[in-house]
């Protein structure tokens, strides 16, 4: 089984991890033999209040809860394994320091190393020295680099989340297919631009010291793909400014050209000339940037086969300047099929099947069955709480827990799919998914034919592409084709039939 260790650095890195988790849930990180890879995720972010970090963590937690709830009661749905290594802040190594002049105590520097103190003053203006770093590195890579360079991976490998992940990397490297370490982050902000190359280099050095040369370290580096709407007020202090994005990017790419190979075995560079617009935020809970297609493309770098191409830096382009289609995605047949399945499942489950199950809680089972013959394949027709023939009652508390886990993950997936298909930037459109259908709704959605656009849409007549048609198929399936019962079995069956 292939093992992938993904590290998201900063807010954009967290968003890429969110995209990666959804790709994983859609079965798109499988190995060559089709076996789902094991994905480990780790979030590095000084801004522990970041809404983007919370979003990524929510996706991770909800998929994790789904996986636990479904357990082994499924053949294809939620089969991918996910290990959450948690969140880590580089400021935790600085003894509680929250500003640069606390990380590098100036009073101490002035008495013990006046030259270094002078250099510190020369490199960092007073407002940067005193800026509160609890909201991140404020779009300033030099601040991030100064903090990140103090990380001692050998020391971190002894404790906490790093210890768990590095230990797993060691174990994975010693068993079969070498694992892959993939870092995500922007090169135009603060945390990602400073953290990704630094961590890449630290990891490569650590792997070398452990004689784990088979482990590849690669990164998806995000070039500018959004601008800020609005500006900061006078009290904001040092903050990220979109006018600096290009400058930061140029500096990062220059560094990558000269020293990139010391950090990564290969990189994937992806951005957008048509920028999405996000409201200005210094960080923290107010940083609620919607998910973006570029983050999906960055996450797809993980799937890029190690042997398919040589070369260090990989870039991607689209065929139409104003529009993106399935053809523009790498390995578009497989990606289109996987994402289409995920989108159609989420709509069918969250906006139809789950509502039906809620209805079943209000009426006698026999009454419910008279309008839902498919349900008897998965649930006991008498509604008995004791399992008979492997079919639990539709009102079993355990079954309802599974339903809640699936509902919650579907909500997260729908939100992400909706945002990547609607948050595009002025004058740019996509022909991948119908964003207006990718929202949780109390209406029973039946028509699935418009959820996916273009070539990834299943080739069947629109009038037959309905949730009802799937329910009819479920009712008619032979018993041999239904391997699992209960809520998980129903979800698994829907997952198989919705494609």
């Amino acid at each position: 089984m292939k093992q992938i260790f993904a590290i998201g650095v900063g807010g954009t890195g967290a968003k890429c991890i969110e995209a990666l988790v959804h790709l994983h849930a859609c079965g798109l990180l499988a190995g060559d033999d089709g076996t789902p890879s094991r994905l480990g995720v780790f979030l590095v972010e000084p801004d522990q209040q970041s809404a983007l970090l919370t979003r990524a963590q929510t996706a991770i937690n909800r998929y994790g809860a789904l996986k636990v709830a479904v357990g082994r009661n499924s053949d294809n749905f939620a089969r991918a394994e996910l290990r959450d290594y948690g969140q880590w802040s580089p400021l935790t190594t600085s003894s509680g320091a929250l500003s640069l002049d606390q990380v590098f105590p100036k009073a101490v520097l002035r008495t013990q190393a006046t030259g270094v103190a002078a250099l510190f003053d020369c490199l960092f203006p007073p407002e940067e020295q005193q800026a509160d770093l609890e909201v991140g590195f404020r779009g300033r890579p030099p601040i991030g680099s100064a903090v990140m360079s103090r990380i001692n991976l050998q020391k971190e490998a002894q404790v906490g989340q790093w210890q768990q992940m590095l230990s797993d990397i060691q174990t994975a490297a010693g068993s079969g297919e070498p694992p892959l370490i993939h870092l995500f982050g922007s090169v135009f902000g603060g945390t990602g631009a400073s953290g990704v190359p630094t961590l890449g280099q630290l990891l490569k050095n650590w792997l070398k010291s452990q004689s784990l040369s088979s482990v590849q370290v690669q990164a998806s580096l995000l070039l500018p793909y959004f601008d800020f709407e609005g500006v900061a007020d006078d009290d904001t202090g040092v903050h990220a400014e979109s006018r600096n994005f290009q400058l930061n990017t140029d500096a990062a790419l220059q560094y990558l050209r000269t020293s990139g190979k010391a950090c990564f075995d290969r990189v994937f560079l992806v951005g957008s000339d048509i920028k999405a617009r996000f409201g200005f935020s210094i960080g923290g809970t107010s940083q609620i940037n919607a998910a973006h297609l570029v983050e999906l493309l960055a996450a797809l770098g993980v799937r890029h086969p190690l042997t398919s191409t040589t070369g260090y830096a990989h870039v991607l382009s689209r065929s139409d300047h104003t529009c993106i289609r399935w053809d523009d995605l790498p390995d578009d047949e497989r990606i289109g099929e996987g994402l289409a399945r995920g989108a159609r499942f989420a709509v069918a489950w969250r906006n139809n099947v789950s509502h039906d199950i809620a209805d079943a809680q209000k009426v006698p089972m026999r009454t419910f069955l008279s309008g839902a013959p498919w349900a008897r394949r998965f649930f006991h027709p008498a509604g008995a709480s004791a399992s008979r023939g492997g079919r639990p009652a539709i009102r079993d508390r355990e079954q309802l827990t599974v339903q809640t886990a699936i509902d919650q993950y579907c909500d997260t997936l729908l939100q992400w799919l909706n945002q990547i298909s609607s948050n595009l930037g002025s004058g740019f459109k996509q022909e991948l998914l119908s964003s207006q259908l990718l929202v949780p709704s109390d209406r029973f959605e039946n028509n699935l034919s418009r959820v996916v656009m273009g070539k990834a849409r299943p080739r069947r007549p629109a009038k037959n592409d309905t949730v009802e048609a799937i329910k009819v198929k479920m009712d008619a399936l032979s018993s041999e084709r239904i391997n699992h019962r209960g809520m998980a079995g129903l979800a698994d069956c829907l997952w198989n039939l919705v494609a």
Partner: protein
Amino acid sequence: MRGHQFILLAASVALGIIWVYIIQNWIFLNLFAGLLVGPGLNLNDYLQTGSSPAFTVLWAGCFSALLIWIAQTLSGKPRSSKETRQMQPMWWIAAVILTIFGWLCLAWFTVFVWSVTGTSPAAGMNSYPVPAGGWIVLMGFVVLDVMLLFWVPTLLASPRTYRLVVPGAVTLLGSR
């Protein structure tokens, strides 16, 4: 609608025709003649010009209702169990109307048609003198006919998610 449902539908319609035109009359003649024949009533005459036309019209009504039911359920796009179940009251309304319609047909061909047309079914009679017991038997057969001509075909041939919506279907077909 699945292939076997078409076969069951055709079989139940064919059985209905045989029932109404052959078996039912045989039962009236051989099992219930004592209850149906009243003073001055020729049962053969009554079966030919009274009950048979009434049951033929009932059969036509049931067949029409069956076609409407199949067309409705085939073209329906229920989005939920609740929406599917909304057809259940429709089925009951159809069944009740058919039953009342059958009774009215009996009354028409036994009593009213003669008064309205001013003709006589037999010498000295302005309607067929069916005894009370006969009426009960005939009315019971209307209910039986509605079951055979409407309930059975809809039970066996309701398509897709409507498969179990007909009364009794969950019990009889729920394990299939």
